[in-house]
C-alpha cells in the first residue's frame, strides 16, 4: 500500500510538469548549413540596412579647399562650415580640361571642388568616392543704379550695399517676372534704374570685378529693398568762370 501511494505521488508530481521543447530542433548537417547561411544573410541585411538608415548616407558637397594633407581634404562650404573629406585608393579625381592622371596631389588650396561620397554621421566626415573641380557661378541680387547703354553694362547695388559692375552679353538670357505674366523674355533696353534684378554670371577673366551675366531676372513688381541705400549723386555747383586773372590768347600766325 505504501509503495502504491509513493508511486502514485511520483506520477502525480510528474504530471504537473509541463512539456519543454528545445529552442531549435537538433540540426542535421544539411539543415545546419542552410540555417547558418540564412543567419548570415540576415546579418548582412541587417548590417546593411542599419548602415544605410543610421550611420552613413550618400552626400554631395561643394566647397573651397582649405588644406590638403595626406589622405584628407579640408573644405570650406558655401555656408562657411568646415567639412573634412577622407580619400582612399578608390576615390576618383577629375578636372575639366585636365589629364586623366589628375589626383589628390593636383588639388591646391583655394580650388573649388565638388565631393560625392559616404557621409558618416558619427564622425561627420565624408569618405569621398568622386572629387571634381568645379566652377561655381556668382549670384547677385539688388537694384540697378546706373545704366551704360553704349557698352551694355550697368551698375548694381547689392543687398550688402556694394556696387557691382555688370556686363550684358549677346548670349545673356534676360527675363522679367510679374505674378500675372510669369517669366517672360525681356531686353536690355527695357531695364530701368531702380529695377530689382537677380543675376547669375561668372567673373570676367581679365577684370574679375566685372561680372559677365549668364542670366538675369527683372522682378518688375517687386517692392524696393529698404536695406539698399542708393545715393543719388547731386551736382555740385561750379563757380562761374570770370575773365579776371586770365591771360588773353592770341592766335598763332
Amino acid at each position, binding site marked *: 500500500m505504501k509503495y502504491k501511494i509513493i508511486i502514485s505521488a511520483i506520477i502525480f508530481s510528474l504530471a504537473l510538469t509541463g512539456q519543454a521543447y528545445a529552442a531549435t530542433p537538433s540540426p542535421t548537417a544539411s539543415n545546419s548549413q542552410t540555417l547558418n547561411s540564412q543567419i548570415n544573410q540576415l546579418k548582412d541585411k541587417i548590417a546593411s540596412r542599419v548602415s544605410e538608415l543610421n550611420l552613413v548616407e550618400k552626400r*554631395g558637397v561643394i566647397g573651397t579647399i582649405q588644406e590638403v594633407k595626406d589622405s584628407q581634404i579640408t573644405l570650406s562650404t558655401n555656408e562657411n562650415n568646415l567639412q573634412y573629406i577622407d580619400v582612399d585608393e578608390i576615390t576618383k579625381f577629375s578636372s575639366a580640361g585636365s589629364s586623366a592622371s589628375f589626383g589628390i596631389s593636383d588639388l591646391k588650396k583655394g580650388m573649388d571642388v565638388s565631393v560625392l561620397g559616404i557621409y558618416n554621421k558619427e564622425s561627420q566626415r565624408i569618405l569621398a568616392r*568622386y572629387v571634381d573641380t568645379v566652377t561655381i557661378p556668382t549670384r547677385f541680387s539688388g537694384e540697378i543704379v546706373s545704366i551704360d547703354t553704349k557698352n551694355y553694362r550697368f551698375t548694381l547695388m547689392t543687398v550688402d550695399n556694394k556696387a557691382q559692375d555688370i556686363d550684358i552679353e549677346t548670349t545673356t538670357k534676360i527675363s522679367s*517676372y510679374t505674378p500675372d505674366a510669369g517669366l517672360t523674355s525681356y531686353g536690355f533696353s527695357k531695364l530701368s534704374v531702380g529695377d530689382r534684378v537677380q543675376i547669375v554670371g561668372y567673373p570676367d577673366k581679365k577684370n574679375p570685378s566685372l561680372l559677365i551675366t549668364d542670366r538675369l531676372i527683372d522682378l518688375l513688381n517687386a517692392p524696393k529693398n529698404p536695406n539698399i541705400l542708393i545715393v543719388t549723386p547731386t551736382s555740385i555747383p561750379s563757380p562761374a568762370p570770370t575773365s579776371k586773372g586770365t591771360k588773353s590768347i592770341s592766335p598763332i600766325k
Partner: protein
Amino acid sequence: MKAEKVILSFVAVFVGLVAAGIAFYLYQSTKGIPFDQFKPSATKVVKAPTPAATETDVFTVDTPTDQQVSDKKLITIKGTAVKGATITVSTDDSDQVVQPADNGDFTLTQTIPDGTSIVEFTAVFPDGTQKKIDRTVTFSTASF
C-alpha cells in the same frame, strides 16, 4: 514511517507550487492596466500648433535637404514663405519664380544639373527685404 516522510515531502512540494502559482497569478494581474484606461477617449491627441504666418520674413525650404543626393534629375521642392513673397529658384543653368499659396506653402519641380551643384532660393518679401537659402544637391546614379 520513511514512506510517510516521502509522501509528506511530495505533498508539501505540491502545496508550495500551488501557492507559488496563485501568488504569481495575483502578482501578474495587478500589473495589468484597467480596461477603462484603454478607452480611446482617455487618449489626448495634442496637435502641433500651426505656425502663424504673420511674421514678415518666414522662409523655409523643406526639400531638398542640403547635400542631398538624388538618382532622379527632377526633384520636388517644398517650402514655406510669407504670403505675397516672390521666390526665385536658381540652379546652375535655369531659373524658376513662384509665389506661395495663401497658407504660405509652395511646391514645384525642378530639373537639376548633372553632378553636384548649388540651388539658390531667394525670397523677396512684401516689405522689400529678402532672404536667401542655399541647397547643395547632387544628381548621381552611381552605386557605392
